């Protein structure tokens, strides 16, 4: 009986701390550069905008100067380039985000609605028609894509879920806005983990939030104390526009840590990555050698960032100490 009680006690403590122990907390992180693609001499990258990787460690980039998507081998060799300027299938005006999911690439364009889908050989396959501009997205399955957008004149700000035909299937409200003139402040980027929990960073607010799959807020966190966003109202715009970007991007590593790239409010503008656990505790900060507009982490915990005004892609191995 006594042994049974001890066993129950041990199991109880294990169950309490399992969430914490399940995540390998990052106390100190060091970045080791393992690859650099592009540079002054090589006319391979001109101004890359989005990056993703596949399961074979191939790297895919969008390039806004030559309206293309490019595929690189793990060692940085250019394998293929596709796309040109235009409005048609497989063409781009300003290619931006690119995400890999199950042998397909999903690509957005800042000046074209919807998401274009390509295979791993960069052949155009189809377009997912969306009527809203895509600010961020995540492919959850072949027929479910989560999208962050900005719809003016709607007080309820949501992450929307669409199927592959562009039909709205679901939404999670993350903000109720009372003053519509501050609509720009509601722009977010996000990540969704394997438990369907939603993590949101605000582009123009010092706010990071976690919601469960049903839309219930779990926590909300700020990283910079007592700072107010400066706003300006251009003559041509009905809205006030924020002057500084607070958070730029969010990614998970495969240990369950959240990597958040901070913008101009951080000490090292667009170079500081804040690493949080899934309870919102700040674990550590790692600083990049050069400013970047986005980050990507692959399945082997390699971090990809931008350098040289988009003419260089850097790949770092994340080392946890």
């Amino acid at each position, binding site marked *: 009986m006594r042994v049974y009680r001890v066993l129950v006690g041990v199991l109880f403590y294990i169950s309490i701390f399992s969430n914490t122990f399940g995540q390998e907390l990052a106390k100190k992180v060091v970045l080791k550069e393992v690859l650099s693609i592009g540079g*002054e001499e090589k*006319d391979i990258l*001109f*101004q890359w905008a989005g990056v993703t990787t596949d399961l074979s460690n191939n790297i895919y980039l969008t*390039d*806004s*100067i*030559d*309206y*293309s998507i490019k595929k690189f081998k793990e060692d940085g060799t250019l394998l293929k380039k596709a796309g*040109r*300027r235009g409005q048609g299938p497989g063409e781009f*005006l*300003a290619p931006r985000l690119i995400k890999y999911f199950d042998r397909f690439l999903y690509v957005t364009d*800042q*000046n074209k609605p919807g998401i274009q889908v390509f295979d791993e050989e960069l052949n155009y396959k189809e377009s997912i028609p969306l009527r809203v501009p895509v600010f961020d997205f995540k492919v959850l399955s072949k027929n479910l894509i989560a999208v962050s957008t900005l719809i003016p004149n709607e007080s309820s700000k949501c992450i929307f879920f669409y199927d592959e035909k562009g039909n709205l299937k679901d939404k999670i409200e993350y903000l109720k806005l009372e003053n519509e003139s501050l609509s720009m402040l509601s722009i977010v980027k996000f990540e969704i983990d394997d438990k369907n929990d939603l993590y949101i960073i605000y582009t123009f607010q010092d706010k990071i939030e976690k919601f469960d799959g049903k839309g219930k807020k779990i926590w909300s966190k700020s990283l910079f104390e007592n700072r107010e966003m400066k706003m300006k109202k251009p003559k041509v715009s009905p809205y006030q526009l924020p002057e500084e970007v607070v958070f730029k991007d969010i990614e998970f590593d495969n240990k369950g840590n959240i990597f958040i790239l901070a913008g101009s409010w951080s000490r090292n503008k667009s170079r500081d990555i804040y690493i949080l656990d899934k309870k919102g505790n700040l674990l550590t900060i790692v600083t990049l050698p050069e400013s970047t507009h986005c980050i990507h982490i692959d399945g082997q915990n390699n971090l990809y960032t931008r350098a*040289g*005004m988009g*003419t260089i892609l850097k790949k770092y191995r994340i080392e946890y100490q």
Partner: protein
Amino acid sequence: MKEKFKRIIVILYFINLAFLLLWGKENQAKESRLLHSKLMFIFLDYSAISCSLCLDSFLTLCNTLKTEKGENIMVVGVIISEDSEDENRAKIIEKQLRGFAKANNIDFPLILDKSNIFKESHFEDSIILFDIVSKSVKKYKFPLDKKRLKEIIVKDK
């Protein structure tokens, strides 16, 4: 005798050189008048090259020049950027211009104004057209409407 021969050779060489230079220049000048009766400077702000919507009018002009201009217009693109005095930034911008020109099939030179000569000129996103035949200088601003485009491209008779 040797000295005299050398002197004759040198004199002949200089006469020949002068003749070639003068004759060549005269010919080039004639060709220049024939080939380029118009000289066009297109001034673009660097930020425009990554702004697809800003480029529409510029690229329409480029395509029209390619098909309509014949050989009477000499075109030079001048790129204005605040950062161009920084040597490293200038190298990156020049690289991006190469990519931009190639992607858009631009066949005239795009020159970065590294010395910031035109920075305060308010020439960004405009065209300065020197018409040698009518002896006039005109300025056009992007976006160009059809009438302006036709006015720029019109061939000499």
